């Protein structure tokens, strides 16, 4: 028998998917704005953040309501508890997209410090991790969630490369490059933070599906 509660859970799932779509779209637009120096698109990302915040609050309230009214157990409880956490992660991802859009606005009209090579690579890793983590949630796919976790070292390495190049090859040699270099450093850092949030989502998905805590236990991934 389908319970009334099942419909409530489906509604919650839909809302979280919508939040995922918001986050994915914000990241896509912010990096497109960066690549194309598109101020209109950067402003669109910043303006849309209000909708993201409102959806975050609505999902939180829904989760609290379901816990209070239905006293969920087992997989229902894990879904709602992780739904709240994933909601917060997605909202943070969308916030970081706003940060990237703001840095982009700072960089517009200034000559590019250097051709962007590793930042676009980091961007595509980050976008891919966002997509995979949301897909893992949608499909309750443990293997895909693990793939997200295994992608994180690549993101860290790219961030380190960007950092090393900007500090050693530009800032150390020519202090006038610092204002632009700092913006790029921040963007690399933001992109890497996005990847960290996706790994949190992936860990939450694993807990939701099989009740196993892999957070802070990387050895469990190899089993």
């Amino acid at each position, binding site marked *: *028998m389908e319970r*009334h509660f099942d419909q409530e859970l489906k509604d919650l799932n839909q809302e979280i998917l919508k939040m995922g779509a918001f986050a994915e779209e914000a990241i896509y637009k912010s990096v497109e704005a960066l690549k194309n120096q598109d101020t209109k698109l950067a402003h669109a990302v910043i303006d849309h953040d209000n909708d993201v915040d409102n959806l975050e609050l609505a999902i939180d309230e829904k989760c*609290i*309501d379901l816990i*209070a*009214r*239905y*006293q969920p157990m087992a997989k229902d409880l894990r879904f709602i508890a992780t739904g709240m956490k994933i909601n917060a992660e997605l909202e943070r991802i969308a916030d970081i997209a706003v940060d990237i859009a703001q840095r982009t606005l700072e960089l517009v009209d200034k000559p590019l410090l250097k051709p962007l090579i590793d930042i676009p690579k980091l961007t595509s890793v980050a976008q891919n991790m966002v997509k995979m983590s949301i897909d893992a949630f949608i499909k309750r796919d443990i293997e895909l969630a693990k793939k997200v976790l295994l992608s994180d070292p690549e993101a860290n390495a790219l961030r380190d490369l960007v950092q090393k190049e900007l500090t050693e090859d530009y800032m150390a040699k020519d202090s006038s490059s610092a204002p632009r270099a700092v913006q790029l450093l921040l963007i690399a850092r933001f992109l890497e933070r996005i990847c960290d949030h996706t790994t949190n989502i992936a860990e939450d998905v694993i807990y939701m599906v099989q009740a196993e805590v892999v957070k802070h236990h990387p050895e469990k991934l190899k089993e």
Partner: protein
Amino acid sequence: MEKIITKNLNLWYGDFQALKNVNSGFKANKITAIIGPSGCGKSTLLRVFNRMNDLIEGVKMNGEILVEGENILNPDIDLVNLRKKVGMVFQRPNPFPLSIYENIVFGEKIHGDNIKKDKLYDIVEESLKSVLLWDELKDRLNKSAMKLSLEQKQRLCIARLIAVKSDILLMDEPCSALDPQSTARIEELMRELKNNYTIIIVTHNMQQAARVSDNTGFMLFGELVEFRDTHEIFTAPSDKRTEDYITGRYG
């Protein structure tokens, strides 16, 4: 729209005051739950809505109870009509020792005038469909209602009210005799019924009130302490006594 309103309602059983200055409004097409510890007055409040307490000796009331705008404490009120409009389902299902068919048409035969047989059959079909019993029982309408399961009996009692076109359903612990699966099915039925009926349920089972109702009233010592949206009562009650009760700290 409010279907039932109480204004400064007081009720005494002899010297004992069971309801103290109760002000409330029960919305149409909503499920309202009344919760509270034993003896708090919740069943008493439910029973005043169709004047069932009149049957108890020494009952005294003052204040107002408006059912669809009409004060039912008015001495001229037609009690038969009131009880037709405001039906009650009890803790233990109480079908008559008659056939399923006769149980459903019983009220109609009392209230109605010479209704034709095929019309009665339509009423039976419609009422049993409303409580999702038709498919199970349509081939044994002449069998005794006493042979049904507890859940079926409770559904039948609800169907009996639907047959006489009650539009307010009072439910006094309607699931306390049922197992969890039957309880869940009755709750689903209540959600279906609220599209057409106003439902007031008294329950000991706080979880049930939280799951099924739109609004909740918390009673203590005859007083309606808090009466609000169910979500608010169970996530952020405004009165400390409500919070103590729903978090299990009371007493």
